[in-house]
Structure formats: C-alpha cells, structure tokens
C-alpha cells in the first residue's frame, strides 16, 4: 500500500489522454448560433488523464485518509458515529433521483420521505414543525434566528440583541450578526452552566433571544434550562437551542418540553449521515407553534393521502436554499431512524453517555478536569500540569492509528481536549484509547521532546501551517516558462 502522496494530477496530464467514453456527436458544429467571440478557445492546463491513471490517483489518495470506517474518531461536538451502509444503498437508488422541478404528482414518494422525517423529528423533539431546507447547522442557525426576528418584527417588538454563552460554538455569534443582531456574551458559572440569576442580569427588553447549546460545549446538561426558558418568555424573549449535541439526550428528553422555541439539528451528527470530509450536511430547524408560519419555503403539506407543496409565504419569501434542501442526506437520516425504531433510539444516548463517562472515570487520575459537573456524551480535560501541549498529545495519538479528540475548543478551557466517543464504539476501542492516552502522557513525562515531534508514522509529518498561511499556494500553476 502506497502511503506517499501521489503526484498532482496536473503533472501526470498529457495531451490526448482520455478518461471518459463519449458517444459520437450527432449534430453538426455549424448549427452553433453563438458568435466566435463568445466561445472559449481553450481551458489552459486542464488535466487529461486515462481512466487507469485516475483510478490509481484516487485509490492512492484514499490510502492517505483516516476515516470512521477505519478507526476511532472521538471528536467532541462532532458526533462522529458510524455511517450505516444500508442508508447508502437506499439513498443511491434511482427511484428518488428526480429533477427538483418535477411536477409534484410524479414525486409523491420523495415528498412522503421528507414529510415522514419531519414528523419523526417533531415526535422526538416536541417541536411543532420543521423545515428541512437548511444545508448545515450554521445554515440552520441563521434560518432559525431569522424566524425569531420575523416573529418579533410581526409582533411590532423587533429587538436588537442575542445573548450567547462564552462556551458557544463560533457559528452562534457569526449567525447572529448575519441576521443583523448584536451579540452579548453571557458567562457560565463555575460549574460550567448558565444560571437564571445571571441571565436576569443580562436581560432587558432589547434581548430577542438566548442561544444556548444543550448539553453545552462542555458536555454538561444545562439543568436550569426550564427556569431559563421561563425567565426569557416572561421577558418576551425566545429560547434558541443549538441541537448539535442532541446525541446526548435523543429519546430521553425533548427540547420542546424544556422550553425551546427554535432548535436546529445536525443530520450529519446525531442522525448518522456521512461527514464526507466536511459535508454535505443538513440542518433542519424546528419551531414552536407560534413561529410555524415564519418557516421558509418550500413547505410540504398532507392533504389526505396527497402531498402538496407551498412555494410562497404571506410574509414574503424567506427561502434559504435552492429547491427542497439536501434531499439525499434527508433520506439517509430517515432510514437511520426507521432502523433504530422505538426499541433502540433511547439506547443511542444511553450508550453515548455511558461511553463518555467511562472514559472520564478512567482518565480522571491522569488529566485535569476543569468542570466537575456530570458529563453527558462528551468530557473535557485541560492541559493543566502537562509537560507538553494539547496539540502535541493530539499529534502523538495519530501515531497509534486513532484520530484525536477536538482540541482548543471551547475557548473557556485552557488547552481543551474534548472527547466524544459516541455510542457506536465498542468497549474494546474505548479501552484501547484509554491505554494509548495513558501511554502518551507517560511518554510526555519521560521525553517531552519526543511527543512534541509527533506524528512519526503518518503519511506526512507535522505540517508547517505558518508557511501555508504565508505562501498561500491555493492552486496548482504550471512552472513559469521563460516568457512569463
């Protein structure tokens, strides 16, 4: 197995190589109606490779990647769980592969799939309705914030501020600002959670909403959530619950019951759709009853057995995405939920939380635990007292064939190591991970320089990120010729 980077495809390119098989053209060139000055003369340096070379190239690239199918990925906040293969089989079937503008009576099956997922998500979360259109969590956040703003504006009570805890994911403040809100940071207490009294201090009539992740990015359940929701509602403010950590209590509690007015979910986290190296995802947004009419189009409805679609809203178009959303991601999530069923859905969160707590208990003697509150599905350690940096430990883990945990997030923990095993890991894997961590911490005590030089056995060693940011080579270009 070749573990070296293959040459860039542009360097293997030769004029005349063919990678595809095309039918002979049937229509003569002279039918072209566009004048020559509108036509492109050439695509300079665009690759030409044979099929064989393309297969070798990408097969060799595959050998360089770690993946969930290959090993452990305990990334906190990412919920890197196993991606079921039956989901792939069903999603790739041609029955669903319609043009999104197909007349709806021809695609009732696709509409049923979307509506079925929506209804299942409503049952799991106790929200009144969902839009499946956002393409990712951040997209969902922006959509959800806009729903809040539309709702308050329609009430004649447009407010300017969104409160966000100091532990929040960066997309929270970014999304708020893109919705025209100002953000104010609100501190968590020494146990890592938000207190009602602190909220009251930061609350005024200008606060539109509080954006909270539950459990928060420390993996701790915001146990004051019901009181927090009450305080907000009494103030005419709304509660946005970022559902990125839904894997911690899916099937155990419902955000709607806890007082959430708007939530988003990440299908590529909790609902097992593949991460694909950074997407595609899907970020459905669920809302409470009073906000349903502000959801973006298109809206799918049942009328008896027939599915219909509405493309316009009385409040003006608030469309956030082309067509219906990431349909092929949506269908995978539906297959996943239908396979779990009522018999297994609760076990997901129970095992996820059990796994995280097992790791916590085993590593507690070796690492600093900044927050002693109960962990749910993820646990956070800091780098306090270590002879090496969190980054160094992460890189050394790579040498042992595992992917490290999330590092340096959330910002409120120094040298944060956020570990989320998920429920799809065996006890053997967890024990292996624990052993590796103990070994590395021991290595760090005895020979810090060795750990600081990791990784050693990966296809490339530690990469120079400073050079990357300064040189900014973001594309290949042919070497300068004498005429350049």
């Amino acid at each position, binding site marked *: 197995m070749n573990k070296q980077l293959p040459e860039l495809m542009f360097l293997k390119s030769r004029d005349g190589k*063919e*990678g595809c098989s095309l039918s002979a053209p049937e229509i003569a060139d002279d039918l072209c109606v*566009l004048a020559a000055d509108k036509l492109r003369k050439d695509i300079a340096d665009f690759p030409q490779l044979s099929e064989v070379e393309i297969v070798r190239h990408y097969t060799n690239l595959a050998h360089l990647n770690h993946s969930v199918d290959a090993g452990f990925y305990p990334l906190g906040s990412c919920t890197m769980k196993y991606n079921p293969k039956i989901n792939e089989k069903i999603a790739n079937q041609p029955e669903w592969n319609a043009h999104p503008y197909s007349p709806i009576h021809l695609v009732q099956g696709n509409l049923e799939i979307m509506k079925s997922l929506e209804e299942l998500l409503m049952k799991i979360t106790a929200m009144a309705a969902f839009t499946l259109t956002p393409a990712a969590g951040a997209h969902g956040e922006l959509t959800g914030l806009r729903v809040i703003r539309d709702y308050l504006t329609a009430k004649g009570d447009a407010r300017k501020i969104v409160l966000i805890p100091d532990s929040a994911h960066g997309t929270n403040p970014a999304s708020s600002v893109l919705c025209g809100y100002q953000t104010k940071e609100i501190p968590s207490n020494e146990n890592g959670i938000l207190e009602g009294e602190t909220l009251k201090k930061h609350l005024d009539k200008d606060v539109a909403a509080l954006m909270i992740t539950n459990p928060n990015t420390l993996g701790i359940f915001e146990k004051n959530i019901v009181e927090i929701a009450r305080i907000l509602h009494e103030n005419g403010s709304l509660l946005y619950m970022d559902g990125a950590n839904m894997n911690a209590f899916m099937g155990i509690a419902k955000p709607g019951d806890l007082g959430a007015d708007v939530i988003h979910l990440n299908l590529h986290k909790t609902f097992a759709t593949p991460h694909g190296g950074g997407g595609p995802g899907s970020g459905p947004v669920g809302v409470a009853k009073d906000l349903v009419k502000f959801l973006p189009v298109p809206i799918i409805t049942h009328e008896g057995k027939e599915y219909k679609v509405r493309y316009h809203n009385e409040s003006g178009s608030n469309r956030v995405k082309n067509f219906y959303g990431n349909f092929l991601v949506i269908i995978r999530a539906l297959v996943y939920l239908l396979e779990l069923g009522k018999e297994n859905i609760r076990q997901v969160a129970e095992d996820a939380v059990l796994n995280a707590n097992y790791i916590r208990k085993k590593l507690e003697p070796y690492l600093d635990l900044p927050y002693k509150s109960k962990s749910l599905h993820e646990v956070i350690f800091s780098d306090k007292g270590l002879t090496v940096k969190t980054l160094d430990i992460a890189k050394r883990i790579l040498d042992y064939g595992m992917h490290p945990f999330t590092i340096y997030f959330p910002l409120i923990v120094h040298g944060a190591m956020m570990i989320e095993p998920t429920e799809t890991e065996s006890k053997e894997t967890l024990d292996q991970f624990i052993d590796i961590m103990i070994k590395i911490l021991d290595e760090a005590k005895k020979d810090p320089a060795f750990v600081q030089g990791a990784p050693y056995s990966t296809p490339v060693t530690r990469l120079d990120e400073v050079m990357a940011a300064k040189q900014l080579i973001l594309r290949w270009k042919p070497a300068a010729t004498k005429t350049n």
Partner: protein
Amino acid sequence: MRYLPLTETEREEMRKTIGIKETKELFSDIPKDKSYFSLADLPAALSESELLDKFKEIGRKNIFPGFLSFLGAGAYQHFIPELVNFLSNKSEFLTPYTPYQPEVSQGSLQGMFEYQTMMAQLTGMDIANSSLYDGGTAAAEGIVLALKKSKKQHILIAGNIHPEYIEIMQTYIKYLDYKMDLVPFDPQSGKLKLAELEGKIDQDTAGFIFQSPNFFGVVEEGKQISTMLHSKNSYSIQIVTEALSLAFLVPPGENDVDLVVGEAQSFGLPLGFGGPYLGFIAAKSEFLRQMPGRFVGQTLDSKGNRGYVLTLSTREQHIKRERATSNICTNEAWCAFRAGIYLATMGKKGLQSIAKTNHLNTAYFVKEVSKLNNVKVKYQKDYYNEVVLEVQNGKTDDFLNKLEAKKILAGIPLHWFYPDQKNTILVNFTEIHRKKDIDQLVQAIGEIK
C-alpha cells in the same frame, strides 16, 4: 442492535467502573418530569429487509422514472460516468471528518486542492474555495462579500437571475443594512438593458450581480458589463448556474469579472431531487482574505515533503466569530471532491465536447421546432443550453399535460416564477438527450392542437 456494540455484560462492567447502578443516573440533571418520556408514538424498528421493502413501497409512489425530461432551470441532468460513483463512494472519502488533522487527511486535502485548481482554471479566476452550499446561497455570499469589502451599502441585481437565487439573496440581505435594486431585462431579447444598468450605478454601489447564461438560457455581455462597472468603481459579479457552460463560453475571468459564484451540480452530482448540490465561489486574489468557506493550501512537513492543510482559517467563524464574513462551517466537501473526480474523468477534451453538445442539441431543437406553428422560440439569439418556448394557442399547463400524457416532461412553466407569463416554458438540453429524443419532443409538440 448492529450499530450499538456494547453488550449488557460490558455495560454492567462500565457502570461498576463509573460507580453507578443504572445508566439512568447519568441523566439525573434532566428534570424528572421531562425525561424518559413514553416512546409509544415512535415507529417499531425495521430490519434491513423490512427497510428495503418499505422504501420500495415509497419508491413506487414516484412515477417520474421512464419519462423523457427536458427540465433544467438550475438543476441539470448529465451523464455521470460510473468511475465517479466508484471512486467517490470509497469509505475513505465518504466517512472522514473535516481535515483538521491534516497528517491523516492528505487524501481529502490533495483532492480538494486539485478541485480548487480546476475550478479556478474553468472560471479563469485566481482562486476558488472548496465549496458553499449551493448556487443560491453562493450568490448571497457573493453579494455580502462585495458589500463588506467595498464598505458600501448598495447592491444591484439583474432581473433575469434565477428567481430562487433572487429570493435567497433577498432573505440574506433582509436584516442587514444594505439596499438592493433590480435591473430589468429587455423582454424582447431576454438580455439585460445595459443602459438602464449604467443609470443605476451610484457612488454607494458595491457591485452588480448578473447571471450568464441567464435564467432564460441567454448569454449576457460579460465584458461590457465588467467594463461599465469598473469605470464606476463597482464590482462585477457573475452567477453561473450551469457550470458546464464554463467549458464552452468565454470564461468570466476573461471578461474581467471580479467574483464568480454559482452551482457546480453539473459536475458529476445526480439530480437527487435538489440536493446535496455544490455552490462555488471563485475570485480575483484581492478578495482572498474575506472570502467565505474553506481553503486548502500547499505546504511542507517537517521532513520537507509536500503536504496540504486547511489554511486562512482565521477568516472563518470559529476564530472570527461575530466578525466573520460568513458563518459557514460544514459545507459540501464530498460533493466538491466528487466534482473533482468528474472533472478529471471528463478531462479537457471530454468537457469541451459535451459542453458543445449541450449547445448544439439546443440549436437543433430550435431549428426543428421552428418548423411548427403552435409554438415559437422566444429568444432566438445568443442562447446556450435553454430556450423559452411560447405556446401559441392556450395555456402552458394544458400543453404540458398533453405532453406528460406521452411521458414527456417538456419544460418548466414560467408562470411558476412570473405569474403573468401564462404561455411560456423553459426547455433544457444536455448531452443526455440523443437526437431521437429531441425529434420525439418536436414530433409530440407538433401533434398538439
């Protein structure tokens, strides 16, 4: 359950280690009256064969398979070589996380670097990012970028941009302090009225965003538009919804466009009922530090070997937080990677060939359908891959129903987007269509009284 590897014995051991009797105790922070709700209203678990049966049953309710379709308008049916499926579905590409640990992600990273290169080559721009959600949101990101970079408040948008893209841009701008004005198109030619554009550009205009080929399939005068905007210190932003057109038409870079945004679904992604698709943005290098999305950059490792990393992350939300230009995090990475495979597979000659076929098929249809007198091609000049067909007697819905009865989806009725256009449809041709398919369409149209 096959995705839950813990055995009951192991759970017992783990509980003992943790020091609890029941797993429930770990959830004690959740208010008792709101936890461990009844699961009765959830469906029963399905086995693998039951899942296949259930989805077969749902699939039977989709009756579009077997229809001859000429639907386009921002989603295009293209032939996807089997190689693209085979390679992109490898689990090493489908199941990894975002490459934040680059040492074990060089496969994804190099593939994305190659994709970024090809997109820059195709658009004729300096740099391209590694994906946005889709064409519509890419257009919205494009105008926000132009507004933020220029520090101006006003943006102009062409009236003949895909209506969904306009809706999305309006949604994005709604609560930001910006003003958006529409520049109308000439109903005779389907093209923009450049004189009207000139009149609307003022000192506070950040730029003008237009689509070419436009929503009606007509190629706009990109060079003239860019020149006009630059003379007034504004940015020229082009939307491309049919990415394949980049292989046939003069690329935006050569027309001095500043930002190119659009949809690259045509590069190997199935129609998939609308998603996941592939937004893209490509630009002149001056935009680099404010561009949304991720970038892969080349560097060296500690031994001096070539390697790739995500770079310029300081632009992104996880660092800039409330000062980020965009909030995008998860994007369409796998789709972009797959598009890279498609582009490598088609190669320069393959792309040029099918891009030309898309146009010639459209031209052939126009030639043949012009022999009929119950329809008329509305914009006969400068179209690329789509044409607007006017139904001469009666309304489009009736016309389309008659064709649907013959299992032909002839086009998209434009009254879906423009309520007063009761008698026009948008018809698209790609290399999927053989000559006999086009003949079949023409004949079927001819048979309608």
